[in-house]
């Protein structure tokens, strides 16, 4: 139950059911500072639920989640305090369509972190500049391509300087060219030392950015290892089956 030194995120024996369906059955992960943990597995294996549990969007049925050693599953904890420290990027972007790109990005810094409008906008513009989106600041999200929207969404969650970033299949709604835009953005973040937990179907990407890859099946982590090890020499039969099916699908 103790938190090993240096872990930003520590998930211990987490259980979650929706009705009769057990989605998570005793999942544990440790994410050290500046490291990236990648979750892979078939749809419905519990990847997204695990991320939602960490962000307290979904309450856990059992188990403990710690952020920098702080038990965030304690009922006395204010979920807003947790979410201020954790950034989340969604599969379907979830940008606010009624706000410009810059307003999307500065909303939380201004309203949640009480930053002055000028400061927030200057920092927002700097972030957009860094991710090659400077010319989109005054546009509305619906006018951007999917890849640009997702990169704006990443910038939006970066704008509050989170301790941890959660990415939930952030490229699943994008075409291969746009996927690369987004993935290189995530690689940049990794290069800057951002601690992340990423659920993805992109095996090549998992190998590039992951420090550890966890394979989930029916709500448990079946196998975990360094990316090269897990993706090229999986030990568990279920992992082997899954990766074989992924490769077969890639050939079609």
């Amino acid at each position, binding site marked *: 139950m103790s938190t090993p030194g240096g872990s930003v995120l520590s998930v211990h024996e987490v259980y979650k059911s929706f009705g009769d369906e*057990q989605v998570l059955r005793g999942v544990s992960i440790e994410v050290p500072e500046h490291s990236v943990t990648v979750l892979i597995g078939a749809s419905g*294996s519990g990847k997204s639920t695990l991320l939602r549990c960490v962000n307290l969007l979904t309450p856990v*049925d059992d*188990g*403990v989640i710690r952020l920098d050693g702080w038990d965030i599953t304690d009922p006395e904890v204010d979920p807003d305090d947790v979410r201020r420290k954790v950034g989340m990027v969604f599969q379907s972007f979830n940008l606010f*369509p009624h706000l410009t790109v810059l307003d999307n990005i500065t909303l939380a810094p201004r309203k949640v972190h009480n930053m002055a409008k000028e400061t927030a906008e200057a920092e927002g513009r700097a972030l957009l500049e860094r991710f090659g989106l400077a010319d989109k600041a005054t546009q509305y999200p619906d006018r951007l391509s999917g890849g640009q929207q997702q990169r704006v969404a990443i910038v939006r969650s970066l704008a509050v300087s989170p301790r941890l970033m959660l990415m939930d299949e952030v490229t699943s709604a994008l075409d291969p060219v746009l996927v690369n835009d987004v993935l290189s953005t995530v690689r940049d973040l990794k290069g800057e030392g951002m601690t992340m937990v990423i659920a993805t179907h992109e095996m090549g990407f998992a190998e590039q950015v992951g420090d550890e890859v966890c394979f989930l099946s029916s709500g448990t982590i079946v196998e975990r290892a360094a990316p090269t090890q897990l993706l090229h020499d999986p030990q568990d039969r279920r992992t082997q089956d899954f990766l074989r099916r992924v490769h077969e699908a890639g050939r079609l």
Partner: protein
Amino acid sequence: MSQPEGTHTPSAEELRRRAVRARQARRRTTIAVVSSVLVIGALVVLVVTSPGWDVVRSTFFDVDYAGEVLPAVFAGLLLNIRLTIVASVLISILGLMLAMVRTSRAPALAPFRLLATGYVDLFRGVPTLLVILLIGFGVPALGLSGMTSSVVILGTAAIVLTYSAYVAEVLRSGILSVHPSQSAAARSLGLTSGQTLRYVVLPQGVRRVIPPLMNDFVSLLKDTGLISVLGVVDAIRAAQIESSRTFNYTPYVVAAILFLILTIPLTRLTDRFLHRSIERQNAQVGA
């Protein structure tokens, strides 16, 4: 720690958390109950002990007199209910037609769009009472053959005309609130623009405007009383007749309570329906 399928024994930590949550829930309930009793109790005491309370009670809350006038007021209320039901059906049809015409883009419908806009401007802008007087007294004065001179029918027609304009605007805002990508998806499946409206846009748009539509419905129920100016005896008019006989205002209170008995459950029912349909759609199930 592995468990057989479907069973999971909660850990000590989870049991502790459940205990904490139960304690928090109990505390919230206790605070809510205590604060309600204190506030409501204070209000009751304040009203009942105020100097004029006895006079107020005999003038507005005479229970025996209330029982005596109840049948007459209730008979009037039945008219309000009947008018509301008939009118709401007609208003729905007319309002929906107006909203569809106003949101359509077909070039052939251009003159109708113009007419619909003019209609809404006119009937939303003129006071309901004025429309009722104009139609209720004005139309019979024309002496047209075959035209009814029933004030109930003419009064209802006036209300339908006015409320259709309100409802059309509410429905139009609902239709416009549905994201264009929804229409694009439906059209790409080969649905015609009419089918897109019927099966994709309207179901989403109407659900969003159910609360304001409910407002209009409750408001309609109350405004059916306005046709009493044409000499029709509804609940309000019946109460007025009674109280002008005795100079006691209990009949008005009786009418007010009857209206509340109708409108409050209706609102709660709509709320529940709305919550259920939102929850069904947003259920976070699976990974």
